[in-house]
């Protein structure tokens, strides 16, 4: 057993500070275990969100030594006991208390994405889809809504006012999943161009780097969506055809 020094953010909207805890750490523990140990033995009211403790629910997002990650998947063997470990709440979202932030923005955006709308089924009432046609949207369905991508996206992180005009990487992954769903019949390109603010993303791939599910957010979701918007709204030949035929 090795003793680690943890600096954990304690505080609420009004203010706060890092507080230091010395914690014994055993083999195999993750950062969330240490936080739970602090909670059980030294700071009973330490606020932290968690559910599955297995990287499946995306509740325990935080910034560990400045790096946004899931606390349940951050093995203590990654760190040296010689240096203190800092655990802070996600910076982009308003603080509620200690390590818990207000992520309601993400749920508000989700409500504005037009839902799935399938075409008619086969005569037997069921649908047919080929595995190769759903591999890509299945990648997007892996998203556990940890909101780490939203947290690191500099459009939101550095410009909190943009939250109203920019849906963020999580939402783009969701929209891409719908747009690439073989059965879906809606088009969400106007939403992407206007309300969702897809143009603000300048593909720095910060979101992709932090995704615990290793979804290729930028390459597989955002860039293809940008191409769709360009094809529809800015392709000069298509525009010419539209002007001549009068069709949109």
């Amino acid at each position, binding site marked *: 057993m090795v003793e680690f020094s943890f600096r954990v953010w304690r505080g*609420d909207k009004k203010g706060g500070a890092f507080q230091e805890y010395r914690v014994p750490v*055993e*083999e*195999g*523990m*993750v950062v969330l*275990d240490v936080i739970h140990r602090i*909670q*059980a*033995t030294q700071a*009973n*009211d*330490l*606020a*932290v*969100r*968690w*559910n*599955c*403790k*297995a*990287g*499946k*629910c*995306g*509740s325990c997002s935080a910034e560990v030594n400045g790096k946004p990650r899931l606390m349940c*998947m951050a*093995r203590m063997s990654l760190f040296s006991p010689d240096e203190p470990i800092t655990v802070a709440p996600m910076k982009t979202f308003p603080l*509620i*208390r*200690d390590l*818990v932030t207000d*992520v309601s923005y993400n*749920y508000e955006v*989700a*409500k504005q994405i037009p*839902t*799935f709308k*399938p075409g008619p*089924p086969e005569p037997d*009432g*069921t*649908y*047919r*889809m*080929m*595995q190769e046609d*759903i591999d890509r*949207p*299945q990648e997007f*369905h*892996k*998203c*556990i*809504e940890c909101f780490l991508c939203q947290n690191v996206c500099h459009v939101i992180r550095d410009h909190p006012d943009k939250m109203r005009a920019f849906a963020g990487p999580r939402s783009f992954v*969701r929209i891409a999943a*719908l747009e690439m*769903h073989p059965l*879906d019949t809606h088009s969400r390109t106007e939403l992407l161009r206007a309300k969702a603010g897809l143009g603000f993303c300048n593909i720095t791939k910060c979101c992709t780097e932090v995704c615990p599910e290793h979804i290729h957010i930028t390459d597989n979701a955002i860039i293809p969506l940008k191409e769709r918007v360009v094809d529809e709204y800015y392709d000069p030949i298509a525009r010419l055809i539209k002007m001549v035929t009068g069709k949109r």
Partner: protein
Amino acid sequence: MTRDKYETHDYDVIVIGAGGAGLRAAIEASAHGVRTALICKSLLGKAHTVMAEGGIAAALGNIYPEDNWRVHFRDTMRGGKMLNNWRMAQLHAQEAPARVLELEQWGALFDRTKDGRILQRDFGGHRYARLAHVGDRTGLEMIRTLQQHAVHKGIDVFMECTIFRLLKDGNRVAGAFGYWRESGRFVVFTAKAVVLATGGIGKAWKITSNSWEYTADGVTGALEAGAELIDMECQQFHPTGMVWPPSVRGILVTEGVRGDGGALKNSREERFMFNYIPEFFRAETADTEAEAERWYTDKKNNRRTPDLLPRDEVARAINAEVKAGRGSPHGGVFLDIATRRDAEYIKRRLPSMYHQFKELADVDITKEPMEVGPTAHYMNGGVRVDADTAATCVPGLFAAGEVAGGLHGANRLGGNSLSDLVVFGRRAGLYAAEYVKNFPGSLTIDAGHVETMARQCLEPFERSGTENPYTIHQDLQECMQGMVGIIRTEGELKKALGEIAVLRERTRRSKIGGNRAYNPAWHLALDLDSLLTVSEVVTRAALERRESRGAQTREDYPRMDPAFGKVNVVVRQAGGEITVSQEPLPEMPEDLKALFDGGK
């Protein structure tokens, strides 16, 4: 008066719990035009359903056209050692295919067969490959599909809002009382109907696959409100949880590993399951490794591998191997898929298991065996409901999903939980809406009752003493793990009852520090009350059933007793006292009885 003092919301139907059952119930109730609210302790989409891995059981017949609801019904009843409510098992088997297709219509993307249909995988106790799935993250697909469907249906969602207890007007349910986790402020919901979809009780045990939410508040609230509980002694221990490292002990390893070809082995590399085939399943289980191997590709001419016996059988076998000194280095057994399937196949079929072992245990499951052992997983019993309507005996109170009892009998088959959620979630929502529409009068909330609850909730701040709620919880988990675990005896069960009483006394001396805003110590102190109650309920029910059946294993009564096979153990609470009784099971009609050989 209550209205002036506490934030109050008025609805026709409130659904408590937002996992698969709660979401499906809310969607259905709302679709029938009643004002519906969905209330959950966590953020939306984080409920336990998200952790379900292997799949959703439905006799779609996409791989084996021979499969149909009767076969699924029979498997479910036999898996539950015939203690199931036959009507629930029938409805479940009949309606599961439509519910799976409905999920697809709402955007779910299940893995496909070569001709573009929904692919189905093998699981324990299912005669045919029956589980629609998405790799090993089926629960995530299901909860996200339901969540995204629900948010467009005009349902009001209250997140991180914990319901403390139900409110009543006379004998009818009238709403619920709870608190916002963020602020600690109290909130009152008035409602003509309440659907409980609060899941299980796994946090009473030390080694568990369950999250912090599984603290039995739904079951306890229902019991207090006058509902009956059945089969509470049959808590399921899933045979394969992780055993190492210690901090991840109990985290689930999907049965899909065995469904996709994984085999259990002891430290002598023997496939020990061949030594544990019970008489009850002998006729349908392979007794040689050669036959078991052939079964994966030819199910018509071969019998199922004993690695895929129902969960109660496999959990007991693993327990026995470890006790006999043939366990793995960290006190489990080996689950080997590495030598049996190629790396690409494993990563494609079991991506989340690959990731989980790699990141949490430094084990590459494509190269080495996993170490696994039993983990408290699922409440087979629960609130007694009417099979067709999901109504409890309390007018206006409905229950669906894990919190409801009856469908699974003494043991649940893997894959039958996800289908349970959508089949009975829908029914609960439908009949709650119907109840509201037929409800003539109005309801009044008893202000005095609300005040009593508010006082009860604040008590932990006002107590004196130095007991730590976290320590009491750990001690309860040790007690239940040690004495009300997989193998039980009368002596230990009685001793556990004594310890639970002592723990309850200790809670009276635990004072909570800090304030009401997002204070997990306070939340735990309140949850402890439910956990202690349910621990007593499980222990007393386990004492009552003096036989071994399904998940209930009594060392002092090691056999199934036909007399106990005809009764449910029923728990009620009246005047603060818990009572336990035996009541006859509903009688199965003759045409269904004919599906079972010799009526076993």
